[in-house]
């Protein structure tokens, strides 16, 4: 199995580990803020800003799912339902379809509130269930929500979806262009990262982790399991509602096909890839998994031809050429392969919550066989009794 794990780290990893965390965080933030300038400077196609917006939307979803799945240990396979509820709330109340034109902040809050209510609704009866059962119930919930949006045609316009969603106007800042949306979503990613990190390192987050680690011990430490799980479910739903609101504004058109079961699965893959329970992991996992297909396609259809000349693939079989240049078609295949590789070679994820390492890689050598001393083992009189 993976020999890279455990406490033995290579010299590079050790050196990287010595750099204080704030350096990484600041660097990441600076890069993220400067990213759209590449486009303004003419060095990058607008496409990549669109990819980044999509990736950041997935970052929000992965961060939210990480709360229930990574931190509390509850598998939710219908997570996209909360995303859909947020998106439809915004779409219906800020488009000509029903004639409403609510402004940005109230809608943002309302999208989150509706998603959270849905989280509460599905959480109350189901969080007594464990493991596989919960996964099945949430999976069904995800499908129900999508089917409802598909079939309540009088309100949601069914499969045709809701077009012409108004652009957000935030205190006079009208957000229309992709770079503007990029900064808007980036702002909320930063806010959510900070809020969730604070919660994680608090009494509330510790209660979630304790439930994930050992529910019996957790309730005997004074944690109300049902309440804590519902809280996790509601918070996680709220983040998805927020993502849905921003998604609807950005797309300016939504229909039920954006909220297929596969989206839930992809977000689960992102959390696993990044490292269950790790907030930086969720961010990296979402960005890598979402942008990888575009990067691969661009590598073969744009970057490599520029380096090696436009015909460098000419001798390749046609199917192989189209495999790389139309890589979007094969993204699910890629996700599957990536997740299988991660689970085999790096089960703690790309950026694990450091604590997770110990469980997934190494067995504690000091662990002793559980031996129980019986009543008379030490008592010297037991020899007489045996005789």
């Amino acid at each position: 199995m993976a020999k890279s794990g455990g406490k033995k780290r290579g010299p590079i990893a050790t050196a990287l580990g010595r750099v204080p965390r704030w350096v990484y965080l600041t660097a990441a933030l600076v890069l993220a803020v400067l990213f759209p300038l590449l486009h303004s400077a003419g060095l990058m196609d607008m496409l990549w800003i669109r990819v980044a917006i999509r990736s950041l939307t997935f970052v929000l979803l992965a961060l939210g799912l990480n709360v229930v799945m990574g931190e509390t240990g509850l598998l939710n396979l219908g997570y996209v339902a909360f995303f859909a509820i947020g998106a439809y709330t915004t779409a219906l109340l800020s488009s000509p379809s029903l004639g409403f034109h609510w402004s940005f902040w109230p809608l943002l809050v309302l999208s989150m509130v509706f998603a959270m209510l849905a989280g509460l609704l599905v959480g109350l009866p189901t969080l007594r269930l464990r493991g596989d059962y919960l996964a099945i119930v949430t999976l069904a919930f995800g499908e129900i929500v999508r089917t409802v949006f598909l079939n309540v045609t009088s309100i949601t316009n069914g499969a045709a979806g809701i077009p012409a969603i108004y652009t957000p106007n935030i205190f006079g800042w009208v957000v229309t262009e992709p770079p503007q949306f990029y900064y808007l979503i980036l702002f909320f990613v930063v806010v959510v990262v900070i809020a969730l990190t604070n919660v994680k390192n608090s009494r509330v987050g510790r209660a979630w982790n304790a439930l994930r680690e050992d529910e019996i011990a957790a309730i005997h430490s004074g944690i109300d399991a049902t309440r804590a799980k519902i809280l996790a479910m509601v918070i996680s739903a709220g983040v998805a509602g927020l993502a849905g609101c921003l998604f609807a504004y950005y797309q300016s058109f939504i229909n039920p096909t954006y909220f297929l079961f596969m989206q839930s699965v992809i977000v689960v893959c992102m959390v696993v890839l990044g490292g269950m329970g790790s907030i930086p992991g969720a961010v990296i996992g979402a960005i890598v998994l979402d942008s990888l297909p575009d990067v691969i396609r661009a590598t073969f259809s744009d970057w490599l031809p520029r380096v090696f000349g436009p015909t460098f693939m000419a001798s390749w079989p046609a199917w192989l050429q189209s495999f790389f240049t139309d890589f979007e078609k094969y993204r699910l295949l890629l996700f599957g392969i990536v997740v299988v590789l991660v689970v085999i070679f790096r089960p703690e994820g790309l950026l694990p919550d450091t604590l997770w390492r110990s469980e997934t890689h190494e067995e504690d050598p000091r662990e002793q066989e559980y031996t129980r001393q019986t009543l008379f083992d030490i008592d010297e009189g037991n020899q007489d009794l045996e005789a």
Partner: protein
Amino acid sequence: MAPVLELVGLTKAFGGLTAVNDMSLTVEPGEIVSIIGPNGSGKTTLFNLVSGIYEPDSGDILLEGESIAGLRPDQIQAKGISRTFQMLRLFSNMTVLENVLVGMHSRTKTRLLGAMFRLPWVTREEKEAVARAQEILAFFPGRFSGPRQSQPAASLSYANRRRLEIARALAGEPRILLLDEPVAGMNPAESLEVMQQIRELRDRGQTILMIEHDMKVVLGASDRLIAMDHGVKIAEGDPQDVANDPRVVEAYLGQRDAAAS
């Protein structure tokens, strides 16, 4: 003074098996009471009843005169009964310090919004909780010092994991501490150390109810001893007397062997 814990005719049956049958006992403040009995005699079931995993079929559980029968485990912990487990139940991937902090859950107040915005009083409470947790860990001198507090609980030695479980239970500031085989799996030297620490806890005023098989520890630490067999109390009183009680010996060894000795 009222007894800290009083069990009145406590009965619990699983199907046809009466695991705990009409069990009554009291634990006075500042006392260490131990329960012994062969495997399957109902000791752990008794603990599970007191700590709220099971609801008693009949009888009552009084904590300082107040009935707690039927409450959930977390409510019972908040009222002041903390426990450890026969098979270790630590939060393996959380740090040593976090394990103790989780034990303080019912003694701290931070809620979601306070935590999210890291309000000043939340930071203060967190600081106080960490200081208190370190104080509790210091009860086991040299075992959880410095950097070890930020290691995952899974990295600890077996004996230290047992100690950490006791520390986590103490963090709930229990009126009574239930210890389920605190020295199980420890070597004699470690057992002796833990026994002395249990006595030290008592000297600090901690009331303790303990299940233990190691007779050195039982006889060395207990103020009073209760023997159970088949869910029934078969003897109670001075530890030495109970250990030598013919009914107790018989419960462990069977009649003929007892006669042979």
